């Protein structure tokens, strides 16, 4: 078993039975589900919208070379410096180079999962910069020295009481556990940082090819301020975030809001096309866009699962996933959690190391059903399992293969099945002696669940007796 698999199993065993954790997540998700469904109903045809979104992403991803070149050309024309990074290390070095060049001291960041992916904060802090996350949830988990729990709700696993204690300890400022009062504590603390910061770093939700514009979706205004006040702005964006046309946002912005947070439109949807332009009152003097591959082209090469590059990181698949809701966001040990993370992490970071995530699913398909861009998520988990076990693409387990090899003739030959039926009855009786104990061969099941007995007469035995 790989180290990440061991970690996953240990954490899952600890978190899944934790009814307090389960309660917090269920309450938060319950609120989300109500507003999400109200918003979906306002659409004239939600399923039709999903089709259009999937079609748009199909065009974007399957002509990525053309669109990406167009995007770079257009945004460069407005004085933006575009950088290309094949992997995480290159992206970190590009950004550290800009910080050095600008003699920066304080860096303010708005939420960017891509920066988690390349471990940017660690690298910047290691190089001596002060780095401040400005999204409230990100700020909270940064103070706790924890990764975000969820793509959209980074601190959803924490109660107001825990956040109050955190603010008291770290900021010495926590008047009460009222969410509004706590939010104002963060507002005061971060206002100072915006004014001090030399460089602002953002992620991006979309990159529009035909106009050369980055689109950022947020509710708090923290990305707006990150992009407005520091003299240098950097946007780190995965190459798959391309949309062909500006008007595609007319569909994607509301769909992202509905699925992400249950809003009709998120509070700020802002498009950035360059540094401060002639005649503008403010804005950064320099704008850098770092385009990141980091194995996205590996996923692109898998035509069967290429649609996963259409992901808009709305988090909707996590929200409906019964695995996520029971093991929580940290158990995955990945940047991208939930179903989408289980699908793409093996492509981004290695199949053998991360295949366990594809098995840690009941294949219920709730993710696929909800995905606004119709990624075939749970079927991709099946394909990952196939790829992990096939002799050509993976490493089959000798024991599992043997078990299925023996099972096939048993299932296929009526005489052998009949014998198995009889032997199972005896085995069942013997197992009954140790039922549920540590030496019960079915212990994985029987520790928490009863197992029904083998019937006195099986269906096939009954049918034979009917003589039809």
């Amino acid at each position, binding site marked *: 078993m790989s180290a990440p698999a061991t970690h996953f199993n240990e954490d899952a065993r600890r978190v899944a039975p934790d009814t307090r954790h389960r309660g917090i997540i269920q309450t938060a998700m319950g609120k989300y589900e109500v507003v999400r469904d109200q918003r979906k109903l306002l659409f004239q045809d939600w399923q039709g919208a999903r089709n259009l979104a999937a079609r748009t992403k199909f065009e974007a991803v399957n002509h990525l070379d053309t669109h990406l070149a167009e995007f770079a050309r257009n945004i460069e024309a407005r004085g933006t410096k575009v950088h290309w990074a*094949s992997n995480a290390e290159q992206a970190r070095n590009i950004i550290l180079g800009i910080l050095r060049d600008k003699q920066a001291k304080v860096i303010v960041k708005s939420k960017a999962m891509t920066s988690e992916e390349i471990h940017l904060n660690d690298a910047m802090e290691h190089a001596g910069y002060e780095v401040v996350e400005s999204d409230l*949830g990100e700020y909270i988990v940064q103070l706790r020295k924890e990764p975000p729990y969820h793509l959209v709700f980074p601190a959803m696993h924490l109660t107001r009481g825990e956040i109050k204690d955190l603010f008291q300890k770290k900021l010495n400022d926590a008047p009460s556990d009222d969410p509004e009062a706590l*939010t104002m504590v963060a*507002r005061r603390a971060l206002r100072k940082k915006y004014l001090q910061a030399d460089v602002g770093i953002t992620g991006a939700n979309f990159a529009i090819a035909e106009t050369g514009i980055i689109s950022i979706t947020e509710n708090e205004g923290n990305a707006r301020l990150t992009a407005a006040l520091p003299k240098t702005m950097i946007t780190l964006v995965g190459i798959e975030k391309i949309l062909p046309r500006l008007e595609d946002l007319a569909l994607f*912005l*509301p769909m992202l809001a509905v699925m992400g947070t249950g809003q009709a439109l998120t509070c*700020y949807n802002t*498009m950035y096309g360059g540094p401060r332009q002639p005649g503008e009152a403010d*804005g950064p003097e320099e704008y850098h866009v770092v385009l990141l591959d980091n194995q996205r082209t590996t996923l692109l090469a898998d035509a069967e699962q290429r649609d996963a590059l259409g992901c808009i990181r709305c988090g909707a698949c996590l929200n409906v996933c019964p695995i996520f809701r029971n093991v929580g966001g940290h158990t995955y040990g990945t940047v991208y959690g939930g179903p989408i993370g289980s699908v793409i992490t093996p492509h981004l970071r290695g199949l053998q190391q991360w295949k366990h995530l594809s098995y840690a699913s009941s294949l219920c398909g709730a993710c696929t059903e909800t995905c606004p861009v119709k990624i075939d998520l749970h079927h991709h988990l099946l394909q990952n399992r196939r790829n992990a076990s096939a002799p050509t693409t993976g490493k089959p387990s000798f024991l599992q293969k043997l078990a299925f090899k023996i099972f096939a003739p048993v299932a296929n030959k009526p005489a052998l099945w009949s014998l198995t039926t009889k032997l199972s009855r005896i085995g069942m009786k013997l197992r009954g002696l140790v039922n549920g104990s540590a030496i019960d061969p079915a212990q994985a099941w029987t520790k928490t669940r009863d197992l029904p007995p083998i019937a006195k007469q099986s269906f096939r035995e009954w049918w034979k007796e009917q003589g039809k």
Partner: protein
Amino acid sequence: MSERENIFNRIREALTVEAHSHNGTGLPTTAEHRGVMPPVGASEDERFALFAKNASDLKATFKLVKDAGELTAELRALRDTEKWQRVATHKSPLAQTHAIGLGLPTLVTDDGYDKHDMEQCDVGISVCDALIAQTGTVLVTSRNSGGRALSCLPPHHVVIARREQLVADLPAAFAMVKKIYSANYPSMISFITGPSRTGDIERILVLGAHGPKKLTIFCL
């Protein structure tokens, strides 16, 4: 070989294997977008009503004012109740005249400003590029609304719009942006939908996370 070329080579190599679409192909038309999205009503009155409802749901304030005089009175009332001390605005006949009319120290962004000074302002007064009925959105740009910070840094953002600036829906808003700016885009285009908010603590709504706690839209 540059990293740019390396990335493009990998993309082109990957795309030599064709993927199959389960959802049809070709980019959707605006008519297709409109066919699935939330309806907006046919008449101008219905759209104003929709904008007003959306603004109210978003906890923004939306007021139709009949003339400049009424607008001045409304702004003065806000100044007095909220005890404004300093105002930020930009060079635009509508916004600047009304801001100056408040008789308070006024920061005008276009002349260049110190961000610390703007942070001390109680209100940012700006015009906008459009109002969007479908979502209750105010559309501002760095070129026409006094830069990037004015609509986000002060705790109250007051927007002065003209009645004819109301557009029906998001497709219309994007079509308008393209029509006006395609030769030369401003560096920032922002769709503002209600005052700043967060739900990061127990999914409970709090207004004014980092941006304005209040958004007031006056429509002449």
